[in-house]
């Protein structure tokens, strides 16, 4: 795919070349033909004048007419009765002789010895009787001077062509740059927009079509930002509104739990079901609100110097998982948001215990600038088609299992929490089976 710049440069180059070739070429050809023509006409006229004013001496003797016809640049020859007089080296072609003998003045340009020669011939006619004398006169001169002049013209033509080509390319390059910069800006802005920065805008310069595109882009980005904002606000508002009825239901869920065994028949089951689902719904709404905060950029990070080993241990302890998980937690302190770390670790370990298989292990390591927490299990690992989507919202790996615990937002929230810390969370499969999730958080130190 050729770039815009290349196409523009090529187009200009082509245009210039064609134009320059046509113009310079045309002028050159014209000038050359004029020079040649004028030279020939002059030579013919000179010879004719000399012959006209001379008086033929037949048979031709010594210098005579030869001397008259010759000069510094011209040599002459006379053919009479089968005999040649004068310079024998004239390049008279049979065609020229034939034409001369028909009674017309004729000439021809002949190449030889690296030069072009102009040969002029005539067979003078008796003034009294109007009959040809039977004598042929020929002169020959080099056209070197003219050739040189013509070649100079050619050189100039080439030079002008080259110069205009350079000029054209420069102009094309400048024009391309003027066009390409806004195009590149637009490209980068569109890319940024696609990555999620809905505040991206493009500076509008000038009033041409590019400026129009830039303006359209800005308007569209604004609309997009607004729309997405509305959407997110709606989600947040919905989640918020759900809270109030949920609060009432949650408040009495415990009552249902306590009374369930005492209820007759299905009523007890129904009560437990309602209680459980209220809990689930509450968790879902909480997760939705959490996600909303990430999306709207209002999620706050409350950093504290935390003993990570103690924090992870506490997380496992509160959920009763300490016995089920192997740990390797050296004492490391790093600035993290205690609550958010708990959310991440709880989600990862919970997933490992539920969807992976024992033994589940949690390790903690420190590197220059980073602390790394890994949660790994020995289950079947993550299928290849699942791996790139595992952090997507509401993505459930096992679609056959339509209902698992959790809202489907757990890993997405864990990922957002990691990123809020300016850290990373990645999922992979271990070489010897099982999945491993690696959380990296900045440790605030360089050692």
């Amino acid at each position, binding site marked *: 795919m050729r770039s815009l710049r290349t196409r523009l440069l090529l187009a200009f180059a082509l245009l210039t070349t064609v134009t320059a070739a046509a113009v310079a070429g045309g002028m050159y050809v014209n000038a050359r033909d004029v020079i040649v023509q004028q030279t020939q006409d002059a030579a013919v006229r000179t010879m004719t004048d000399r012959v006209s004013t001379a008086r033929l001496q037949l048979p031709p003797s010594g210098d005579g007419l030869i001397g008259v016809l010759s000069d510094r640049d011209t040599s002459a020859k006379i053919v009479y009765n089968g005999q040649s007089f004068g310079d024998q080296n004239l390049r008279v072609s049979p065609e020229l002789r034939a034409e001369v003998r028909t009674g017309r003045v004729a000439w021809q340009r002949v190449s030889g010895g690296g030069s072009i020669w102009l040969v002029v011939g005539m067979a003078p006619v008796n003034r009294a009787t109007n009959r040809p004398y039977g004598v042929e006169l020929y002169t020959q001169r080099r056209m070197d001077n003219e050739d040189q002049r013509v070649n100079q013209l050619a050189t100039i033509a080439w030079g002008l062509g080259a110069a205009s080509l350079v000029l054209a390319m420069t102009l094309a390059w400048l024009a391309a740059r003027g066009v390409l910069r806004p195009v590149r800006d637009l490209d980068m802005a569109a890319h940024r927009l696609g990555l999620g920065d809905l505040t991206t805008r493009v500076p509008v310069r000038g009033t041409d079509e590019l400026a129009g595109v830039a303006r359209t882009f800005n308007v569209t980005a604004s609309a997009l930002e607004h729309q997405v904002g509305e959407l997110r606000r709606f989600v947040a508002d919905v989640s918020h509104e759900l809270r109030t009825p949920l*609060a009432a239901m*949650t*408040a*009495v869920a415990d009552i249902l739990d306590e009374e369930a065994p005492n209820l007759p028949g299905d009523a007890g089951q129904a009560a437990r079901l309602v209680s459980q689902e209220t809990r689930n719904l509450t968790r879902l709404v909480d997760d939705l609100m959490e996600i909303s905060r990430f999306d709207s950029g209002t999620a706050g990070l409350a950093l504290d110097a935390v003993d990570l080993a103690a924090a992870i241990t506490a997380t496992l302890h509160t959920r009763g998982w300490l016995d089920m998980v192997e740990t390797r937690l050296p004492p490391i302190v790093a600035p993290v948001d*205690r609550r958010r770390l708990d959310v991440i670790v709880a989600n990862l370990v919970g997933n490992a215990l539920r969807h992976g298989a024992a033994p589940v292990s949690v390790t903690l390591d420190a590197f220059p600038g980073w602390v790394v927490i890994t949660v790994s299990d020995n289950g079947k690992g993550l299928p290849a088609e699942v791996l790139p989507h595992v952090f997507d919202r509401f993505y459930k790996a096992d679609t056959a299992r339509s209902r698992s615990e959790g809202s489907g937002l757990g890993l997405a929230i864990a990922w957002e929490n990691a990123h809020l810390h300016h850290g990373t969370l990645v999922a992979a499969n271990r070489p010897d089976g099982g999945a491993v999730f690696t959380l990296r958080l900045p440790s605030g130190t360089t050692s």
Partner: protein
Amino acid sequence: MSRVLLIEDDEAVRDGLQLALTRQGHTVHAAGTGEQGLGRLPEADVVVLDLMLPGMDGFEVCRRIRAEGDLPIIMLTARDDDMDVVAGLEAGADDYVVKPVRARVLEARIRAVLRRGTTTDARPRPEGDDYRGLTIDRAGLVVSKNGRTIGLTPTELRLLLELSSSPGRVLSRQQLLEAVWEHGYLGDSRLVDACVQRLRAKIEDDPAGPLYIQTVRGFGYRFGPL
């Protein structure tokens, strides 16, 4: 058991909490607005106060309750109101729970806060009760400064007792949260900060340059040294 004043405007939530708390043995008086609630203060041992109220808002109710006495207050908040939590603590709340809340959880908090105001520690202190003008009666749960009794909420009292029980020793927010608020590992350390601030306002000569409760940056708080 105890008498709980529940100020919550949403009827369903109000009914639900009233139902659950009553089952646990508490006597619950419910009010739908701040004004109604304030009228029933004398009937309560503890107030459960929703911050989002029509008319007089929760913060104002909180301040009014504080102005009249040291009744323990537990705030009901929505999770995304971070600023509201801080504002509520500054207005004088002892603790807060996030809606939706399970009755069990709220009930635990109510009991904890009531405990704060009643548990006594009758062990005699080797250093005595007097700390440069500040007298702390651990048995009678009375604090006085230069002879004048200072009114503290149960939480403030408990915090002071905790800090002064090991003077000169730094206690982390975590430790204080567990000791005073009985919160688990994930308690909100802002509770400690807000309470310390209120305490200083009451007992320090110069709250900006505290003598009794000193901040040890990065570690926590310390009582003294004097």
